[in-house]
């Protein structure tokens, strides 16, 4: 399929959905109609060429389908929908830009994060249920259930387009950022099967984060989120080797990092940090920026990274942040100080089965020259790992120390 045409209809889909919902209500039915219009575009555009006004074309196509659907519904149920609303020739008028409202609706607090993600990818990203299912490695029927359930829940909660009050806006935008970050991470963590997918979740998440940043340029956390995504994506080519095995940051070939993405990410985070409240996304982006600017792993400004993690731990405490902070402390102050930071985590029953804790401890023990303990910790981490590439890496480390 022609990538350019697909980009156009995917970019237009939230605008089309917003216009329909604003005119007709019925988010659920409108969303189905937009999906059908996109499928129709996939059939017609490659042979007939891009229409002069793609958005208008999609709105007309979706409106016709929506009116048909509502008419057949109406024949069965009550006649609540006014006949005047059902004239397909009276296509909705575009009023401003509704795509942000659609995103905020998809991230409604009545939905679980998994539902927000699936609905956002479909209603805002314009992906088909099949594409979303393939990206998340679950059956199409399962994804279809998640989407239709999410729409039913929105209807039950009485959620409407544009119902976000000024007081609600920060928390709704926060939910939207979290959903976009989940989408990004899902795409970034996947190493296998990427060639089999016709859509990249990281590209999609970056595209949507760009849109959100364009709508809310003064929101510093949104800028931080976009910067974090760009700075992470910049390392993609270097994070796996020819066999598809994971390459840790320390061993990555930095000549394969995407310098233009790093430059853009650094610019964004440098502009965001002084401009507003400093939140977790900006701090994580600042950490990624320090890594991005180091010519070699040994040149990394570890004291600065340790300080940024200390700030992140204060802003958003959690075991993963503490573990990452320990790595930075080990690099700037030595492994003993870092191992002492991990000891309390090892005593927590909920964390003792987390492979990452043992993997980090293993690296620190190796750094400290405590090889027998390091070998055991790598073995323990491998036992607990549920990612095949990480498990292979940890088993290699354990075996290398044993020799």
């Amino acid at each position: 399929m022609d990538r350019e045409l697909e980009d156009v209809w995917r970019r237009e889909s939230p605008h089309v959905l917003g216009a329909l919902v604003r005119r007709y209500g019925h988010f659920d039915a409108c969303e189905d109609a937009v999906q059908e219009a996109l499928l129709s575009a996939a059939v017609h555009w490659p042979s007939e060429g891009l229409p002069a006004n793609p958005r208008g074309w999609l709105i007309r196509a979706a409106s016709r389908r929506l009116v048909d659907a509502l008419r057949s519904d109406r024949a069965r149920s009550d006649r609540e929908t006014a006949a005047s609303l059902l004239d397909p020739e009276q296509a909705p008028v575009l009023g401003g830009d509704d795509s942000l409202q659609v995103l905020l609706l998809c991230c409604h607090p009545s939905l679980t994060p998994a539902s927000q993600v699936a609905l956002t990818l479909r209603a805002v990203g314009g992906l088909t249920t099949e594409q979303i299912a393939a990206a998340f490695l679950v059956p199409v029927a399962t994804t279809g259930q998640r989407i239709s359930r999410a729409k039913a829940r929105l209807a039950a909660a009485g959620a409407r387009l544009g119902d976000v009050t000024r007081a609600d806006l920060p928390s709704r935008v926060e939910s939207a950022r979290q959903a976009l970050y989940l989408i990004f991470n899902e795409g970034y963590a996947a190493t296998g099967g990427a060639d089999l997918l016709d859509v990249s979740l990281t590209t999609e998440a970056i595209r949507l984060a760009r849109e959100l940043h364009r709508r809310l340029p003064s929101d510093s956390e949104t800028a931080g989120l976009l910067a974090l995504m760009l700075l992470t994506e910049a390392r993609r080519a270097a994070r796996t080797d020819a066999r598809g095995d994971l390459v840790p940051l320390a061993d990555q070939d930095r000549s394969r990092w995407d310098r233009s993405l790093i430059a853009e990410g650094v610019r964004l985070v440098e502009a965001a940090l002084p401009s507003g409240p400093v939140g977790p996304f900006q701090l994580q982006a600042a950490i990624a920026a320090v890594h991005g600017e180091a010519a070699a792993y040994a040149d990394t400004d570890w004291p600065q990274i340790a300080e940024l993690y200390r700030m992140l731990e204060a802003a958003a405490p959690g075991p993963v942040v503490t573990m990452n902070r320990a790595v930075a402390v080990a690099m700037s102050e030595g492994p003993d100080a870092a191992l002492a930071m991990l000891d309390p985590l090892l005593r927590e029953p909920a964390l003792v089965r987390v492979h990452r804790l043992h993997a980090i401890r293993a690296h620190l023990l190796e750094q400290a020259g405590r090889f027998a303990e390091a070998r055991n910790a790598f073995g323990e981490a491998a036992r607990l790992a549920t990612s095949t590439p990480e498990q292979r890496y940890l088993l290699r480390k354990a075996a290398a120390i044993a020799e």
Partner: protein
Amino acid sequence: MKYVILIHSNPQPWGHPTGEYIAENQALPAEQRERLNAEFERLLTEMSENGELVHGEALADPSTSTLYRWSGGEPLATDGPYSESKEHLAGFFLIDVAGPERAQEIAHAFSGPGETVELRPAMWPGGEEH
């Protein structure tokens, strides 16, 4: 995160749902059995509606299985069961949930007297950057 829930059981005679053919379950007061069954059905419906239940299968009597073991350089087929142990694999569910807490909650609710429910994380092909 994906998990497999394995139901280890030995219904007599072999049948599904396994609880109906297990003495410990039959011995429960009728009211309690009905409540447990209703809770299980409610959870299963919820999980298939919200997309957490990816797949599930009930398995045939273990005596109907065929085992393939390597022997003399090639596979040799014999009739099952796999082991003479007290319990056999009676069925499985593949679930996809937000995290370990939810998986534990589901496995807890799938448990019944006289059976062992095993919750195992599935491996996945991705990985986090270190």
